[in-house]
């Protein structure tokens, strides 16, 4: 599928202006949160169940290489054929070749985010093979030629009594960046994700912009931690910053992923231009601001001076007790908000007076 992660802001703006999206988002997260709450109440101790789930995922990911080997052995022993695909090209190639060899003209397909990641439908179409999504929601998005908006909604029809068993079972084990993500204990944490979508429904940003701005198979906080781990930081500069660090995803995650901590890690790796993750490095302006902050903040006399200069600079634009705009200031902030004019004295400068009065 097309990766449009680098257009996060642009797509977000379009979605904020899209009445359909906004109407949908007003209903969706609340309804899903209510469903989740009632499901959780079916556990005698929901928090213990939550912790148990996290432990299972943690163990499974720590043992992933070993478990995959066991899986392959068992699968082969049960008559399946296993193919290890290094990337999406290898996986799609294997599947398309197999279909051609067997004279297949169309395939049916269950809802699967990993095939979105592969762009399997497009690859099969190129090989002249028609694909039919069996999941109703996926079928509709297929007809609309759009990527999925949400990752876990809708389930397809199932009639277990009609299942007759396949003649051949082929299993593709996909790497596509996962081994590299596994090497770093931090990014490894992202692999715990079970694609349940709980974090999407909890996320205030997703709740406003929906799934499209995230630009790849995985949207919401799970996309923000997975996409950089699998794709690197090159085109995900906005993606890793499109977060207020509100921590709701971390609290709700049944796999125990600490999304805020991972996003902060990615930002750090991006700023320092980390090679393994393909960080972009920071612009001179931002670098200057943080260097200035850290130098001034290491000495309270410099800090005092810094406060004075900031006050003089900001208050040049005051009108009454407010600042409505600044020519070279934060335009995004002033697009919808004022700032208070800075008071004549900082708390530090008032301290002698406060101390005398109160203590």
């Amino acid at each position, binding site marked *: 599928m097309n990766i449009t992660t680098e257009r996060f802001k642009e797509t977000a703006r379009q979605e904020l202006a899209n009445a359909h999206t906004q109407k949908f988002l007003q209903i969706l997260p609340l309804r899903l949160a209510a469903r989740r709450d009632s499901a959780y109440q079916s556990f005698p101790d929901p928090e213990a169940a939550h912790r148990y789930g996290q432990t299972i995922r943690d163990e499974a990911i720590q043992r992933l290489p070993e478990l995959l080997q066991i899986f392959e052995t068992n699968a082969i022993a049960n008559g399946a054929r296993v193919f290890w695909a290094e990337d999406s090209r290898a996986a799609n190639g294997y599947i398309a070749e197999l279909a051609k060899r067997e004279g297949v003209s169309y395939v049916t397909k269950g809802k699967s985010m990993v095939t979105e990641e592969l762009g399997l439908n497009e690859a099969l179409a190129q090989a002249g093979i028609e694909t039919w999504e069996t999941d109703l929601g996926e079928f509709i998005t297929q007809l609309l030629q759009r990527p999925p908006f949400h990752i876990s909604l809708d389930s397809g029809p199932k009639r277990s009594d009609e299942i007759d068993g396949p003649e051949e079972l082929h299993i593709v084990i996909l790497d596509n960046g996962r081994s590299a993500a596994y090497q770093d204990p931090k990014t490894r944490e992202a692999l715990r994700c079970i694609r349940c979508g709980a974090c999407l429904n909890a996320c*205030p940003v997703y709740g406003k912009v929906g799934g499209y701005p995230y630009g790849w198979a995985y949207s919401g906080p799970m996309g923000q931690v997975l996409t950089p781990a699998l794709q690197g930081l090159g085109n995900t500069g906005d993606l890793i910053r499109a977060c207020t660090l509100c921590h709701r995803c971390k*609290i709700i995650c049944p796999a125990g992923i600490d999304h805020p901590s991972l996003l902060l890690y990615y930002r750090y790796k991006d700023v320092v231009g980390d090679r393994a993750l393909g960080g972009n490095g*920071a612009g001179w302006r931002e670098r200057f601001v*943080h260097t200035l*902050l850290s130098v001034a903040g290491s000495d309270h006399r410099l800090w005092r001076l810094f406060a004075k200069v900031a006050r003089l600079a900001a208050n040049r634009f005051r009108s009454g007790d407010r600042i409505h705009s600044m020519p070279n200031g934060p335009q995004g902030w002033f697009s919808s908000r004022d700032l208070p004019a800075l008071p004549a004295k*900082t708390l530090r400068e008032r301290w002698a007076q406060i101390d005398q009065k*109160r203590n």
Partner: protein
Amino acid sequence: MKRVSLFIPCLVDMVLPHIGESTVTLLRHLDCESTYHSEQTCCGLMSFNSGFRKEARRLARHFIRVFENDEWIVSPSGSCVNMVKNRYLELFEDDPVWFARAQGLAPRVYELSQFIVDHLGVEDLGGTRHAKVAYHESCSTLNALGVSAQPKALIRSVRGTELVELTGADICCGFGGTFANSFADVSTALVRQKAEYFLASGADLLVMCDPGCLLNIQGYLDRHHPGRRAVHLADYLAGSIGEKTQVAT
């Protein structure tokens, strides 16, 4: 008398100093003596959140040097407390010496309402203030520190104050530091939603524990709903015990 060391966020020091004064007022009311280290600067939250860890570490080392001999360190900001209590450990994960110093400091750092209720064991300040208020759950305060019952208990204890329900009280106001500027469209949609829920709640005032949310929400109200007020918990409570803190500009 307990000696409490004030950890004043930069935003309070430079922009909203009345919150700091109200903090001193409340602590005094509770028989605590406030000390203020004038060497304190910035905890490094903004640099850390922006990915500038080297710069944040420099600020964090300064912070630790200034505060590490204090027994009780109290701040009227959930996000700054979270930075010092939890994020410093990530910041120094590869530096055993400073990690240990950060670890030693962490349990002594409290968010204001947490200190009053959990540590001092006070849920009623004995104040009176006639108002209908709603409470905004600041994300760092609620989700990172788990502080929510404490400020609400303090608000409910004020005679004449009615704490009304706020729809979406625990949904982010869209501040997120530099997020508010660099993702202005999304941030605005969130703060608009917060303001709408506040207006619909019928409350006179929207109370919160974080100066960042306050700057954002009040900034939006000033632009779009002049006269409507958001207020920091410290200011609200200080007002209820008769020590009316002047909002200086």
